[in-house]
């Protein structure tokens, strides 16, 4: 999986999905506004090939700010994997719920164009040959991911509990 863009620390939900597009809510419609105020990145995403997962690498506190779920659905729509040193809580939980692949990798070193390989407990930068450890989601919190997202998981519980 290729790194297509690199971002710094504290990328907020306003960077990812500016407030002025919040009236657009449907996951099918949000991807066009991803990083709307970073026109170069917005163009890269909207015009690029979405068939293979693409990686954005970021620093600390990715997704800080609002609870707006558009900030996650917009990235899901572009088939992105976000590798960051760490994530803000609500964004992180929304990612689990919506099936956005996030990788918490505190020591990540990667540049645009690098080829990454994701293992169970490591991230390998195949371009530089450097291997980094990642912080996995605690086992007790994996049920949602394993069910295929929160909608599927809630459906399952609803059926179990109301039958």
């Amino acid at each position, binding site marked *: 999986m290729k790194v297509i863009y690199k971002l710094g620390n*504290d990328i907020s939900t306003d960077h990812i999905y500016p*407030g002025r597009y*919040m*009236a657009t809510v449907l996951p099918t419609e949000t991807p066009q506004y991803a990083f709307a105020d970073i026109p170069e990145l917005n163009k890269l995403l909207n015009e690029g090939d979405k068939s293979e997962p693409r990686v954005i690498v970021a620093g600390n506190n990715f997704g800080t700010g609002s609870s707006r779920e*558009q900030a996650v659905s917009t990235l899901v729509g572009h088939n992105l994997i976000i590798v960051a040193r760490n994530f803000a809580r*609500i964004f992180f939980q929304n990612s689990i*719920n919506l099936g956005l692949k996030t990788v918490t990798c505190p020591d990540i070193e990667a540049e645009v164009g690098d080829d990454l390989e994701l293992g169970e407990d490591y991230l390998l930068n195949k371009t530089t040959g450097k291997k980094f450890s990642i912080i996995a989601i605690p086992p007790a*919190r994996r049920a949602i991911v394993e069910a295929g997202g929160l909608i599927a998981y809630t459906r399952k*519980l*609803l059926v179990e509990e109301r039958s």
Partner: protein
Amino acid sequence: MGQTLVQKILAKATGQNYVEIGDVVEPQVSLAMSHENAALVINQFKQIFEGLDFPLKVWDPTKIAIIFDHRVPAESRKTATNQKLVRAFVAEQGIEKFHDIRGDQGGICHQILPENGYVLPGSVVVGTDSHTTTHGALGAFAFGIGATEMASVWALGRVLNVEVPETIKVVFKGKLPKGVYAKDLILHLIGKLTNQGANFKVLEYTGEVIENMDTSGRLVLSNMAVEAGATAGIIAPDKETIRYLREVANYQGEIELIAADPDAKYCDVIEIDTSNLEPQVAAPHHVDNVKNISEVEGLEVHQVVIGSCTNGRIDDLKEAYEIIKGKKVAKTTRMLVFPASYRIYNEALEKGYIAEFVKAGAVVMNPGCGPCLGIHQGALGDGERAFSTTNRNFKGRMGNPESEVFLGSPAAAAATAIYGRITDPRKLMEE
């Protein structure tokens, strides 16, 4: 081992005597709040039920609150149509705690909830808004969630996948000097903690400053807990909480006080002596870029914003009123005031604050989120600078990535409006 306030609340909400920090639990929800993004929650809620034989019904319509505040009155066809869709759902499901765009009951969700007595100490409150932390001021465990998570709550009545968080104890001691308010305390704390210093953790505010602070100020501290990354910002309920619930919120039911055990385990304790604090500001473009106001005094300001879920309460308007009465807003500056609820708006009308703001040259807007999140009303021009009592100064927050937002108290904002430059409010208090 003793438990923190949040451990105790989560134990109660899961029918246990004890929960350990790090446990993954599914607490029952006492109140589930949404605003306009209820439109997305409804969309996700319908997806959960798709193809199932169950009737499309929320778990408990009395525990759901929906308040229109982010884009009121609607700024676009899309918003207006979403609001229409939400109204229909509210009627169909029998949701009673619904606050539409009305002069007799509307306002910002984080003011509507407390002032109507919807939030009780010891309860679990979730909201599809990051500033849901506000309600920790009344001793609830209140935190922000996404729309899909809310749809799941509407279906099941509980939040799935909650990790019992660690708590940082913050002790505010000393006196509050003149011109220094709850806003200055929280900005100072965020500056110390950084914007991710409390990520996945809870802030519990204690100390004599908190004991002497009324609920209005406490709401400011809890509101901005999320700006340090915190899951929640909580204050142990006390006699002030009871006073607020009885006298302001007109809540007549039972109130259960709850406190942390004396031997509760905190991951950190931060002590702050407030006696020598000067007014604080957060400079662009991060809330933790906190400075003493003296470091940025004199910077030209094109727009002053007073209001929001952080500082749009009657005390905030009073602070601003006392500074601006009899004076004029600088010719080079626009001053926008938006009270946090219609109840506050009406009180400010009765007390003459609104008339004085208008006379000074300010524009008083309808209660709502207004310019805070840059959707409609009060966007900034390229290269312009705002001084605002709101809670975020992210790049582009006020509708334009080519502008700057400074955050501070209502008193500092009013003083700044008069001179058109960032001004220490204490100068106007000594006159």
